[in-house]
């Protein structure tokens, strides 16, 4: 099963390679990873999406906890939480598809953040399903480039499953 794991880590040189090294050294898979500073500049937050059976996920969280620079590990999958990801999609639609691209952008509450003579760059934020849906719909219109941030997640207040 897929798990979204959130980590608080010391914002130090080499931390990312310690974490990446743990996954590669033990043969675990990283599906996505995002890192950023927290309010406290000495601490970073990382969100890792990984998959495995219960025993593997238990090992992953324990091994992460064991890393000296890791302050806290939360398996978001066990909590009620909000997940978001952002994508930037550059589409080069044919003349007749242009209106459809803009309509889809609106439906998905995206924004056009740049446009050229032949392209629109669209920004969309949402959970995985939403992102996948818009990508599917835009594909036939000609996606030229596509970048995604990787997932970030935060626990909802109070209501635990």
């Amino acid at each position: 099963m897929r798990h979204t794991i959130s980590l608080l880590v010391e914002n130090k040189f080499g931390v990312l390679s310690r974490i990446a090294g743990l996954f590669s050294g033990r043969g675990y898979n990283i599906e996505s990873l995002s890192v950023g500073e927290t309010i406290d500049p000495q601490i970073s937050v990382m969100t890792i999406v990984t998959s495995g059976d219960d025993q593997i996920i238990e090992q992953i969280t324990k091994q992460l906890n064991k890393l000296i620079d890791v302050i806290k590990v939360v398996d978001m999958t066990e909590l009620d939480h909000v997940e978001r990801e952002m994508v930037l999609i550059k589409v080069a639609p044919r003349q007749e598809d242009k209106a459809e691209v803009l309509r889809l952008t609106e439906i998905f509450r995206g924004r056009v953040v740049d446009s050229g003579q032949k392209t629109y760059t669209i920004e969309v934020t949402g959970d995985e399903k939403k992102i996948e849906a818009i990508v599917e719909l835009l594909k036939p219109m000609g996606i030229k480039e596509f970048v995604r941030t990787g997932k970030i997640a935060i626990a909802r207040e109070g209501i635990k499953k």
Partner: protein
Amino acid sequence: MKMSGAEILIESLKKEGVKHIFGYPGGVVLNIFDSLYDNKEVQLILTRHEQGAVHAADGYARASGKVGVALVTSGPGATNTITGIATASMDSIPLIVFSGQVPTMLIGNDAFQEADIVGISRPCTKYNYLIKDVKDLSRIVKEAFYLAREGRPGPVLIDLPKDVTVSKAEFTWPEIDIRSYKPTYEGNKWMITQAAHLIAKSKKAVIVAGGGVILSGGSKDLRELAEYAEVPVTMTLMGLGSFPGTHALSLGMLGMHGTYYANKAVQGADLLIAIGMRFDDRVTGKIDAFAPEAKIIHIDIDPTSIRKNVRVDVPIVGDVKRVLTVLNKVLKEEVKEQWGEVRKAWLRQINEWRQERPMTYTYRDEVIKPQFVVEKIYELTKGDAIISTEVGQNQMWTAQFYKFDKPRTLLTSGGLGTMGYGFPAAIGAQFAHPNKLVIDIAGDGSIQMNIQELATAVINNLPVKVAILNNHYLGMVRQWQELFFNERYSYSHLDVVPDFVKVAEAYGAVGFRATKPSEVEPVLKEAFKIKKTVFMDFIIDWKEKVYPMVPAGAAIDQMMFEEQKEKPEKKLKAVK
């Protein structure tokens, strides 16, 4: 008063109570070496190879329980330490390795003798540091000792750029607090109580003790538990010495080359009490067939060890000694169960297995059996010695035939299985215990991996003894080829083995040789009497194998024994 980085380093080592560093110089650490020149409190022992330095520091740590320290130069000096660091890491040995580094300005430039040792050592250290500012130096040294020693111990590397050793700062010795590292020492009381009830109710319990018992200093508590609950104890290779090998409840080692009765007991047990061990594949054999009837209580300070390889019914994360103290108390004061006869029946059953297949070998008059040498060493030392081993058959024969009664008397590379470990480790141990008899039991292959350390032993007047079980083969490899590769001895024959007596003499040590069983005891006696480094070359029966043996991937009660395998001798087909 301002001090240079090099001076701060030495001051910090003094604060940590370090008396010995094992090391090797080179360009970027010369400032540190210069500061050591007229220092009386911290002595550097010059080895002849950086790998030797790290193994020596490791042997020092295992024998003394203190943190071992090594110091090497950048580039090749640093990369030479990796085998030593990985060896310590796999066996959870507290070490600090200081490596020199090119000046901070040059890092990343492929400068002369630059190696990214922090990157290279990351997977085999518990933690590592690159120091960029001399002001951080003393704090980092203090943190490193804390990390190496606390929780599950392990090696820590500190990379020291040359300019950091030269720049100046005030010496401070700050309080440290590592917010992201808080090991759990106290076991959960509820879990411990569960464990106590399981123990009280079990009919066929077995304790499996590992290296964690030794690391935590929990041997006394283990003995108390075993004796009070009348539960037999088997040990992993790393656990040998955690419980007296001569005790009536000792089953010796379990696993691939364990005793028949230990493996039978584990496979028949209704409860395993696993203490400070991690269910290595050499211990469990085929994992699905391991201890099929048993509930498992697992005590370990490292949560990742629990449920990594086997299912566990009662996990207890904590320091072995502290958990056992509470467990013993709960058993005696709260559970107070009477087990009487039930335990006796189980111990009787185990004794039947013990009699059915004791740990034996076939003595011969005309040729030296390696087990005979190990037995004689045991007899003559009465167990009062520190024994290190190399890797291969020599290691297994030592584990099987020497009775380790006390913790920290066996130094062996269990996890990584590093040939070349034993001799430098013995040197390190001799520095920790100048008056103890320290003996490396070696193979003729392994001893050649760090034989240069003869110079270190001789120059320091160390009375270290090396007993080479010389079979002219990479014996353990040969054994596998004989048993599983149709006697195709592919590149395992050491055709040219040096004359070890002459090698010893060339270095200024003493060399003896024994070719007949009758010579074994006189040679050992003479060697133990001499206060010098001695190499003993025992020419052993090259055909001898380590039995019993569980083939890789089989259940641990599927054992092979000596008599089953002795086929008529085939002609040797060694490829050299």
